């Protein structure tokens, strides 16, 4: 390779960035592991590990019932169990009557709960709490194990209950 050609390639390969300040530092996926907590409906982002309702029950009593009530029946914060019919525009939205994807349960518990101590649960604990809440709502069996393969397959009752407001804005 001639020197000239090499220089041309070098300029070409960095040319996209040449005009900008280029002040970001490169990141590896290892650098991102503590922060990379998005879970998508197809299961992308779900970590290894697993949990069951039986393991989730004592965790829930210890870490969640303070706000969400015993057995998730509601307290100073939302009820997590039950599917009252949606009768009006201000009907309560619950996991079983509204949430379209079970993966959102794992994602939200892992990033935001418990309210006083977010990011303190292990992935197995998040799977167990997800399994407990889904089982209390009879969306999975009492014995079903939740993991990266099974959780995205849980069919939520209101999966198809949504209409994009401005589809042209989603392009």
């Amino acid at each position, binding site marked *: 390779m001639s020197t000239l050609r090499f220089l041309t390639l070098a300029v070409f390969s960095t040319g*996209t*960035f040449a005009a*900008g*300040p*280029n*002040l*970001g*530092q*490169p*990141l*590896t*996926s290892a*650098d*991102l592991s503590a*922060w*990379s*907590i*998005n*879970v*998508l*409906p*197809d299961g*992308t982002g779900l970590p290894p590990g697993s949990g069951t309702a039986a393991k989730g029950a004592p965790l829930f009593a210890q870490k969640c019932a303070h*706000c969400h009530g015993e057995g998730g029946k509601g307290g*100073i*914060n939302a009820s997590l169990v039950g599917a009252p019919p*949606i*009768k*009006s*525009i*201000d*009907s309560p*939205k619950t996991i079983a009557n*509204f*949430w*379209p*994807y079970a*993966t*959102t349960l794992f*994602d*939200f518990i892992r*990033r*935001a709960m418990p*309210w*006083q101590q*977010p*990011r303190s649960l292990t992935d197995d604990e998040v799977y167990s709490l997800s399994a407990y809440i889904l089982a209390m709502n009879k969306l999975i069996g009492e014995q079903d194990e939740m993991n990266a393969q099974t959780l995205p397959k849980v069919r939520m009752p209101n999966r198809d*209950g*949504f*209409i*994009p*407001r*401005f589809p042209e*804005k*989603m*392009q």
Partner: protein
Amino acid sequence: MRNTVPVAGNGLLDRRAFLRGGAALISGYIVQPAAAEPLADAPWSKEPGMLVPAYGVPSSHEKAAARMLSNPKGEPRTQHARTPHHLLQGMTTPNGLHFVISHAGDPDIDPQMHRLAIHGLVKRPLVFTLEALARYPMVSRFTFVECGGNSAPLFSPEPVQAGVQALHGLASCAEWTGVPLSALLEEAGVDPKARWMVAEGADAPHLSRSVPLAKALDDAMIALYQNGERLMPGNGYPMRLLLPGWEGNMNVKWLRRLELTAAPAMTYYESRTYAPILPDGKAYRFYFLQEVKSFITHPSPGLALKGPGFYEISGIAYSGNGRIAKVMVSADGGATWAQAALQEPVLSKAFTRFRIPWQWNGAPAVLQSRAWDEAGNVQPTRAQLVALRGQASRVSAPTGFPSQHFNGPTTWAIDPAGSVRHVYA
């Protein structure tokens, strides 16, 4: 002398009647003011004043100009702080009065330690310090931010007895300065498979929202400054995502991470909270836009009129679709309308102050405004909005959220005593 004959019912005057100086003759109902008292020097004029503080705060006589707090003791739930529109003027919300919603308090972020990561479907995952971002070419723009739940009590079947702060206080407007997000995404190199961007905050709930990549590459900004100073803690210090004209919750505060993806993440806030239920039981999802809206701030409940005579009616109009094109005002419950003056500058996706002079004759009056945007959208009537979106099953609390994305009209009734209350018309 300009035309000051009323141009619509109940004493609305031509919007140009008092512009560019000069007196105007008002035909119709005229109040003769009583004679004034003799003038005397006040105590503050006869001695030196206060020390000038290092960081100024408003006059001690303006304590009422404060935000309305929904959870002042910080109980384990969301805190809302609502802007007192009835005590403000112009188009800019002072930083200390900008609305805030914090789902688990405002984090106290050390700017030296904060990082913004861009990764996912990009050629080069990157991380930025605040110092690095502050070296990028910046842009400034005025834009409103509005919570998707602002004005939601107006879904109630009967008018909630509350003022403009409770009803509409979850919208504010500021000049934001920061780095165009497109510049950072170009440096990271967007993978052609990317369609969405999942934005995440560094707050305790790690609030996350999915944003279509087209919006991220259009007018999105990593905002570092608010009305010239660094962001307030409640507005995302040291950096937030700014998506002009789009649902407040998507303008992720305390921004720490942007992951480019092929599909939306269906996060808690997009798949549950900001998915308004429709009358048939289905729900809208990915509403995104804050649609054209207006409301009268002066007068409004709590600002009683002090007897018949001249008043300026003014309020705020805005649209997530662009500039405000026109605001019409009625003083007779929508029977007749007059065009309001729009205060310059009229900016895209920013608050626009509208004003119209009014000669109140002391009889009952019913005030309402209606706005049009440059894209041709018009603020729906209440009947049109209810036909599409329905009404709540019961009257909401003054700061309740029976649904989201209400942009119908707000109506104030004025009784002969001058007091103002919320009605439907």
